[in-house]
């Protein structure tokens, strides 16, 4: 009954709505999406560079190159528990594929991330570096991989949260833990040898390392990409199965 044009417009209209509803206006929204990771970067810079005196060059650039993509993942997953609740009125009213709702919140955060890339470029220039041509294909590849992974996780989290309303707290804690286990404010080379295998058991590690490598050196590592694709497919399939099992009950519990 619904054709391709309708699906496309559903995604566009709902994404625009998310943008408006979450940040009220897009100008403030941009400030928010850039300001939050910048503030985090500032805190880590003070803590690790100024106080702990970590031996790294261009540490603020290093931080930002990892924090911006991380922020996309973290914001999307942290928001996931309430996306269906926030759209209860339309879910109870019309039959449409509910899986579009978490997709639009993830897309929205992706757009904010893309808008923050110029800030990374600014920092590159500050350190007398410049963007690389490989960004032209590297950014789209990593965008798709992260979209797959983030959407899969968000779909599962948002579906389960409807049935366990306090799942949100658990997710917040989990995301914080995950952040410290992912090489974002420290390089993966500083992780002791005996824990290296654990590093790659974290689905976010290869992805965040890839982003940082791409932004700082313009290079992509095929093994990291494959690992991310692997985790992305698992997250997406798993998320979709959870969603499919629960989605028909959404209107009942909302």
């Amino acid at each position, binding site marked *: 009954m619904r054709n391709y*044009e309708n699906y496309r417009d559903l995604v566009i*209209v709902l994404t625009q709505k998310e943008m*408006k*509803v979450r940040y009220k206006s897009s100008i403030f929204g941009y400030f928010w999406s850039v300001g939050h990771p910048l503030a985090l970067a500032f805190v880590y810079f003070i803590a690790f560079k100024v106080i702990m005196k970590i031996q790294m060059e261009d540490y603020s650039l290093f931080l930002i190159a990892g924090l911006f993509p991380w922020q996309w993942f973290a914001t999307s997953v942290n928001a996931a528990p309430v996306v269906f609740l926030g759209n209860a009125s339309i879910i109870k009213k019309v039959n449409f594929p509910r899986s579009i709702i978490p997709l639009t919140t993830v897309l929205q955060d992706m757009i904010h991330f893309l808008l923050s890339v110029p800030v990374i470029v600014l920092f590159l220039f500050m350190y007398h570096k410049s963007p690389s041509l490989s960004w032209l294909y590297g950014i789209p590849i990593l965008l798709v991989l992260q979209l797959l992974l983030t959407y899969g996780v968000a779909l599962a989290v948002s579906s389960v949260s409807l049935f*366990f309303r306090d799942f949100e707290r658990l997710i917040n804690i989990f995301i914080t833990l995950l952040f410290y286990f992912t090489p974002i404010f420290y390089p993966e080379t500083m992780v002791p040898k005996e824990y290296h295998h654990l590093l790659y058991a974290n689905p976010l590690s290869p992805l965040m390392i890839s982003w940082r490598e791409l932004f700082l050196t313009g290079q992509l590592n095929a093994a990291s990409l494959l690992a991310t694709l692997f985790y992305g497919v698992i997250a997406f399939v798993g998320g979709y199965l959870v969603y499919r099992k629960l989605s028909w009950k959404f209107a009942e519990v909302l």
Partner: protein
Amino acid sequence: MRERAIVFEGVHKSYPLYHHITGGFKNFLFNFPKSITQFMNTRYDVLKGVSFEVLRGETFGIIGKNGAGKSTTLGLIAGVLKPTSGAVAVRGRVSPLLELGAGFNPELTGRENIVLNGVLMGLTRAEVVRRIGEIIEFSELGNFIDQPIRMYSSGMLARLGFSVVALLNPEILLIDEVLAVGDAAFQSKCLSKMVQFKKNGVTMIFVSHSLKDVEEICDRAVWIDNQRIRMLGPAREVVNGYLRAL
């Protein structure tokens, strides 16, 4: 014989008592075996073995006390709920459920909500935009159309809701008590629009406590009482039967 637009066959709908688990993850884990058995066993019935048919182009009323299962019936037709057993078949493009207070996003303007609703109904943005002038005109909301709808009164929301659904060419229209809050002038405007729909062969399901409206507009009606069908037939007879039982 005319085509059937909606068929309910022995529809049974019950809900588990979700508050056992929505009470929280911790509760669920700490009472794990109990949670599971409770989850399986405590259900309450909303509809028991309900069967009826609505023909294409028919106007069909649903009456009954609060909590009798009227809104669940509409939810089943809209496809947002699934029957526990039995079958529901609906043929045609169903409008969003018109209900009081629900359905719109309070932060968006009236205009943005029109587009959102149209796209949710299955139209493309271009199709909605083409008709948006007509919708705004019918709603008589004037300059308020570009205000966030959290500023609207309930009567204004009803105006917006009816206008959107009415002018986006639904094939099946579901109306749940939405006219009650509109002022007299708008109510009569909606009613005349519904008469026009009838001429155009739109199928309408009309839930109302205004028995006069049901009697006037509907061809047939069903009276749902205690989760079951108490009476099904021509609207006048069902309304009379309902009135006698009060």
